[in-house]
């Protein structure tokens, strides 16, 4: 044993299976995420293909014959106001997606900015942001949304205002989560090493900390989209949505108002209801799946 300087023994590198194989294996373990993604992709395809094939004008009243049961011509039937329900569903899903992405994206963005600001500057800025979040969090969101949406002139309510109403009380969650994550990340040793490597504080935030928070940010975003879609749905069902638009909730509200079941127009509210269940279900599955990906404590042993 005279060798003093260690020399690495020739050791064949472990054969790494392809990325696709690893991804499939991961999905096999995290089935919730896989199922959620499959449903979501199916819904997106339905909407995209629908938008390309149907005539969007048929999603609005008096465009087709009224009260037709499902048939080859109108696979989802038509309603009391003379809307092609297939067209209404496609446009409604598109609008739901717009609300979800705008509200979810805005909520997450505010969360990231405030969360990072809070954790980075600390001191009174941190206390202020944290206190505001903690005061707003327990307020029943539904109540405020109903009051605000109800006090608006119905003619002014559009898809965008809908999204803004929803986002109004939805940014505190992501703010607190991201703030907490940045605070723990800041104490990690690789941040100290980055400082020793001459990396500036700002670069540490964006290059060292932010990339590690991507799973959290993704999970927060999906959670926000879920909350936004759900809020837009129940507000519309309560008749507080943009009445002219064929939002999924609006269709159900209209069907209920005209006594669709009493009159035997069963096909009217069924489609939107199933679509809503699928949308919310897939988002919830994805959210839980991402949670498992982001949070090692929840992560199963691999």
């Amino acid at each position: 044993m005279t060798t003093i300087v260690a020399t690495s023994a020739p050791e064949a590198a472990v054969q790494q299976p392809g990325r696709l194989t690893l991804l499939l294996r991961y999905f096999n373990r995290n089935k919730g995420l896989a199922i959620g993604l499959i449903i979501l992709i199916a819904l997106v395809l339905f909407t995209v293909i629908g938008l390309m094939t149907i005539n969007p004008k048929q999603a609005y009243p008096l465009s087709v014959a009224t009260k037709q049961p499902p048939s080859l011509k109108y696979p989802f039937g038509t309603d009391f106001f003379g809307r092609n329900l297939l067209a209404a569903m496609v446009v409604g899903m598109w609008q739901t997606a717009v609300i979800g992405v705008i509200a979810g994206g805005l909520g997450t963005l505010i969360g990231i900015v405030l969360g990072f600001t809070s954790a980075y500057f600390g001191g009174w800025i941190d206390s202020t942001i944290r206190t505001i979040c903690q005061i707003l969090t327990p307020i029943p969101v539904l109540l405020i949304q109903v009051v605000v949406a109800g006090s608006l002139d119905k003619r002014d309510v559009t898809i965008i205002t809908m999204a803004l109403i929803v986002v109004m009380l939805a940014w505190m969650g992501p703010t607190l989560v991201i703030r907490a994550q940045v605070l723990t990340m800041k104490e990690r040793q690789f941040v100290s090493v980055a400082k020793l490597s001459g990396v500036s504080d700002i670069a540490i935030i964006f290059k060292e900390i932010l990339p590690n928070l991507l799973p959290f940010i993704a999970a927060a975003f999906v959670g926000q989209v879920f909350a936004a879609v759900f809020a837009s749905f129940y507000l519309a069902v309560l008749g507080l949505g943009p009445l002219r638009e064929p939002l999924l909730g609006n269709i159900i509200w209209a069907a209920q108002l005209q006594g669709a079941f009493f009159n035997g127009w069963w096909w009217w509210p069924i489609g939107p209801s199933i679509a809503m269940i699928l949308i919310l279900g897939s988002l919830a599955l994805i959210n839980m799946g991402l949670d498992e990906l982001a949070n090692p404590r929840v992560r199963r042993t691999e």
Partner: protein
Amino acid sequence: MNLASTDTASGRNAGRATAEPVLSVNDLVVTYYTDLGRARALDKVSFTLKAGTKMGMVGESGSGKSTLALAMMRMIKPPGRIEGGNVWVGGTDLQALSEEDMRKARLSKIAYIPQGAMNSLNPVMRVGAQMVDAIKSHLRGESASAINDRCVWALKSVDLDPSVFHMYPHELSGGMKQRVCIAIGILLRPEVIIADEPTSALDVVTQRQVMETIDKVQDEINSAVILIGHDMGLMAQTMDHVAVMYAGRLVELATVREMFTSPKHPYSQALISSLPTLDNKGQFKGIPGLAPSLLRLPTGCAFHPRCPLASDRSRTEKPKVNVLPGGQLVACHLYDQGN
């Protein structure tokens, strides 16, 4: 299998050791099925241990030390699987027990103090309550006062004041917490105690206290102790036997004196000569190379790429375990009969 444990000259408890081994591990095999392939974490490991003796288990991380402990406790979790062999403790075949009986055996026959156990004490429960819980889940029908006596006895055995019974973990120092873990381990006077790196997070003084506590406890209940660690110095100070693991195999098992005076396996030899002592100041004899990945073991003897004495046979043929005249076990072609 005739074993090193026949020679217990260096053990303080030699006189008390009974003839029959209390622990016997035979051809234990554990495989992990990972995304990257199949890893044989434990490859036909066999050894026996007598009551009242202490065996140190050393090896690099990934050599299978902790897997061995978990396999003996039947606590291997998927994607790992015990694929063969058996473990006998005092006449009971643990592999043959039902899940429920195994659960009961876990504290009463064979106790395991996992790595970092001291940090796993429940912070919101008093030490006493955690001890009582441990007893109740393994032993039905003992009166409250008997349980209490048992706890006080265990605490006293590890040199803790009985008042610790009413304290919370945060009120204790690291060394005290580790001794609480040992106290919980000995509550039901198990025949075998396995401690996984019980002192790696402690400073030298506390480490010595904990080791002396283990010594004293063992004197009292005469169980067999397996200490998993990688500090050869600690093994020299406290153990009767030393087992060396490499890439999932037991490559050498010897009494502590044999291990430190005439190690047989080239890996053990390299390990011993890499240790810093008072006499070899400034000489650094590391072992060249790195431990192999279990997913891609070299052919033949897994140590051959780092071995200065490797022969062509080492490269192609896996060495079997040889029993030397003194009872020492060594898995190396250098000691094959006829050599």
